[in-house]
């Protein structure tokens, strides 16, 4: 039953279009007669098809598909029928659903045919133009051709080995590789300098080993922060040597380093600390902190970068030299610093001294710096004590350090600047003679050891009007979908279709069709069937009136009408013989139907009242359709009984139908 329904469904549209053979047409007729819903659906489909045909005939176009040039050219390379057309079914469908693409395809087919007929003129060939020679020489200059040759299996043999090898090298562009390697090396060096594992031994104590000689690892690396105690705390850290001064303020570091420099001490300045050999710690501390005032400043535990606790240097440790006369201030620990390598704080002594009243305790705000504005201090894990000269930011000799992008060198001193933010700025070497040994401020020097990094960073891609971001260009573009080219006429469409489908083996199709339909034709006489056939849907009259094609729905077999013939070919219609007699019979039938209809109209009211229904009639092609609308819902048995009653009371013929609604 289900299969029957599917079969009927397949045949509905061909039935409406009048292309079914008589046998199948009768099957559909029967199905429609027995099923009112099916009849209603058919009538709706008929309207849709009519509307579609009228719309297309009036210039309406379906949405156009797009095909790339390559696809069209590929499809256009077809020399045979649609069957042999290269490409996928999708491509083919898109081709036939696009007017432009189909026109291009037709042109390509025509070109193909013309080329096959034409003998090319090989006599009048001009000289190769100069620009092509230039192109050729340009190609020769590049190793591209050799690359391809070397890697083409088919042509490996004639190429010498050296050429293949050179083409291999040609393929490798060394620049990015070298740049990557260099960047990697620099990065690893920076990481190594910044995050040196604590377990790796590093020399300390020897001035010659401080700073750079990481290779000779004899002792564990140590570092220390400035401490008020007599012995500097030594902890494992990333830097070699003993830290005698710690600060994030580079200007301050620089100033302090200059003091050591003036005393001919070897030291290393990293980004946040000054390191010296262990044996020089005491001397360095003396230089950095010694002052007659003897104030030592340390921080409390609160995270208050601005809070300063000063205390007498004497109380900080008996053996420790007096702290600097200048007020110290804490700049704050670096956010990058890990707890392990954070400076060790030794404020206990200072606090103890302060609480015992041995020194002054004061809180102050650090002076504002023009060259290094104070930044918010991150939370500290440990208290850090740092010292600096008092503001203004100048050396004791009054030399003001300004931010600079260049690192200057003192005579005899070597300044090396690392890469990136993680690098340390290191100074080592002997201080030139001529500076005082008394700890006084050094004389002004021709150039400063500038460790202030430049902030002048150019942001790429943010160029002004002269470069960088180009001005937006307004380009007039139009979407093809929005364009409304003039509609293709029906004649044109038909012509294109013929051109596109030319080359189909018409003979083969016709033979196949003939074979399929022969049996049908033998079985039935054409004329009576044609007379009984429902009228095909009216088509808008266009010059490209399509051939009527009769299709046998026996699963893929085509009956009659070779489908791929030009529309100008004779119409192959089933209705070929007995057309005149068929017309006469149809007229007689219509007359009879009209008579029946008149009788039914007369009896309608009475019959309707008697059966409790509403009735309407329609006569078409010699058949009368009775539409019945019952006033109550009927069961199947009641419906059948009603049909019988109505058929009897209204005097319906066998061909008439009753449609219950």
């Amino acid at each position, binding site marked *: 039953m289900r299969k029957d329904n*599917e079969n009927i*469904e*397949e045949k509905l*549209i*061909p039935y409406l279009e009048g292309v079914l053979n008589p046998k199948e047409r009768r099957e559909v007729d029967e199905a429609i007669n027995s099923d009112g819903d099916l009849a209603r*659906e058919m009538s709706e*489909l008929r309207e*849709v*098809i009519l*509307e*579609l045909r009228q*719309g*297309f005939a*009036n210039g*309406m*176009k*379906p949405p156009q598909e797009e095909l790339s*040039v390559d696809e*069209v*050219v590929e499809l256009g*390379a077809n020399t045979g029928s*649609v069957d042999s057309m290269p490409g996928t*079914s999708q491509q*083919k*469908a*898109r081709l*036939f*659903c696009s007017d432009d693409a189909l026109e*291009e395809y037709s*042109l390509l087919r*025509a*070109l193909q045919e013309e*080329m096959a007929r034409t003998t*090319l003129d*090989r006599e009048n060939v*001009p000289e*190769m*133009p100069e620009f*092509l020679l230039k*192109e*050729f020489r340009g*190609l020769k200059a590049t190793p*591209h*051709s050799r*690359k*391809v*040759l070397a890697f*083409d299996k088919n042509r490996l043999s004639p190429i010498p080995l050296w050429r293949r090898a050179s083409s291999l090298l040609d393929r490798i562009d060394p620049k990015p590789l070298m740049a990557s390697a260099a960047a990697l090396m620099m990065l690893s060096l920076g990481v190594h300098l910044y995050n040196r594992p604590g377990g790796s031994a590093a020399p300390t104590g020897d001035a010659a080993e401080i700073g750079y000689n990481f290779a000779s690892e004899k002792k564990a690396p140590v570092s220390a922060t400035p401490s008020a105690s007599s012995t500097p705390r030594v902890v494992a850290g990333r830097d070699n040597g003993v830290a005698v001064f710690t600060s994030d303020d580079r200007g301050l570091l620089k100033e302090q380093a200059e003091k050591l420099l003036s005393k001919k001490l070897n030291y290393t300045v990293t980004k946040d600390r000054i390191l010296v050999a262990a044996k020089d710690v005491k001397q360095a501390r003396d230089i950095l902190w010694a002052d007659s005032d003897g104030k030592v400043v340390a921080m409390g535990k609160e995270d208050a970068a601005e809070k300063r606790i000063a205390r007498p240097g004497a109380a900080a440790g008996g053996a420790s030299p007096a702290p600097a006369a200048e007020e110290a201030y804490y700049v704050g620990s670096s956010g990058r610093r890990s707890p392990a390598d954070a400076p060790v704080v030794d404020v206990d002594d200072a606090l103890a001294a302060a609480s015992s009243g041995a020194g002054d305790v004061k809180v102050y705000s650090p002076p504002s710096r023009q060259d290094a504005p104070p930044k918010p201090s991150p939370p500290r894990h440990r208290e850090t004590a740092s010292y600096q000269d008092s503001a203004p930011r100048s050396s004791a000799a009054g030399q003001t350090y300004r931010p600079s992008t260049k690192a200057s060198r003192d005579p005899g001193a070597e300044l090396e600047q690392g890469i990136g933010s993680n690098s340390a700025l290191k100074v080592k070497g002997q201080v030139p003679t001529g500076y005082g040994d008394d700890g006084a401020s050094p004389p002004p020097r021709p150039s400063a050891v500038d460790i202030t990094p430049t902030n002048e960073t150019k942001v790429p891609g943010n160029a002004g009007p002269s470069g960088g971001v180009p001005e937006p260009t307004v380009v007039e573009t*139009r979407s093809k979908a929005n*364009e409304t080219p003039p509609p293709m006429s029906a004649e044109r*469409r*038909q012509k294109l*279709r013929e051109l596109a*489908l030319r080359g189909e083996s018409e003979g083969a199709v016709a033979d196949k069709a003939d074979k399929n339909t022969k049996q049908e034709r033998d079985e039935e006489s054409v004329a009576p069937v044609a007379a009984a056939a429902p009228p095909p849907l009216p088509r808008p009259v266009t010059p490209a009136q*399509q051939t009527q*094609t009769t299709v046998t*729905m026996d699963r*893929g077999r085509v009956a009659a009408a070779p*489908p*791929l013939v030009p529309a100008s070919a004779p119409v192959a219609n089933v209705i070929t013989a007995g057309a005149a007699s068929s017309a006469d019979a149809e007229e007689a039938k219509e007359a009879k139907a009209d008579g029946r209809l008149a009788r039914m109209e007369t009896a309608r009211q009475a019959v309707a009242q008697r059966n409790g229904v509403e009735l309407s009639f329609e006569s078409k092609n010699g058949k009368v359709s009775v539409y019945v609308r019952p006033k109550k819902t009927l069961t199947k048995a009641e419906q059948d009984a009603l049909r019988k009653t109505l058929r009897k009371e209204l005097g319906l013929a066998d061909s008439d139908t009753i449609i219950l609604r």
Partner: protein
Amino acid sequence: MNAEEEKSLVDRCLVGEESAWSELYRTFYPQIRFVVGWKRWGFSKNEVEDGIQEVFTELIRSLPNFRCESRLSTFVDRLARNRCISHLRKKSALKRPKETFSVELEEGKGEEGMSRHHVISADGSPEGALMASEDHKDLARALAEMPEACRRIISLRYYREMSYQEICTVLELPLGTVCSRLKRCLSKLKSSIYSVGGT
């Protein structure tokens, strides 16, 4: 020139023989000239000359990528056709009407100061055409909203007016599938039209 000769010529060209390039030019100029200069393209003389140069330039650039898997003449032919279709599309895009347009009325050139307006309609009255276009607007919209497969099969059958067998060939589907799909698509279109019309 047979396939072997073509292969040898390509090798010589790629190795850098200048004479080989001249030979290549001499060999394929007539073919390219024929394709690009085909009258039905409608190209002017200058366009043809430019086209030949472009095809040769493209040939020189793409010859290193030519793998000798097909005939060189086929490759050249494909290049020439590609260029022609591209140029054709460019030209037709230029010819298409733009969004904005202006209307110029030649006032005062008719008789006795009358404006001269010509209304020419091949489809009968303009009102009729307008009515028809309004009638089909819903249909066109509903068709545009249909799934791709439905749109295609409806287009092939009712716009391209192909037979069922042709549709089977193009879509590579059996006849029964084509017919049942067409029926389903038309039912969908019907309900779509009603919904579009209702809204």
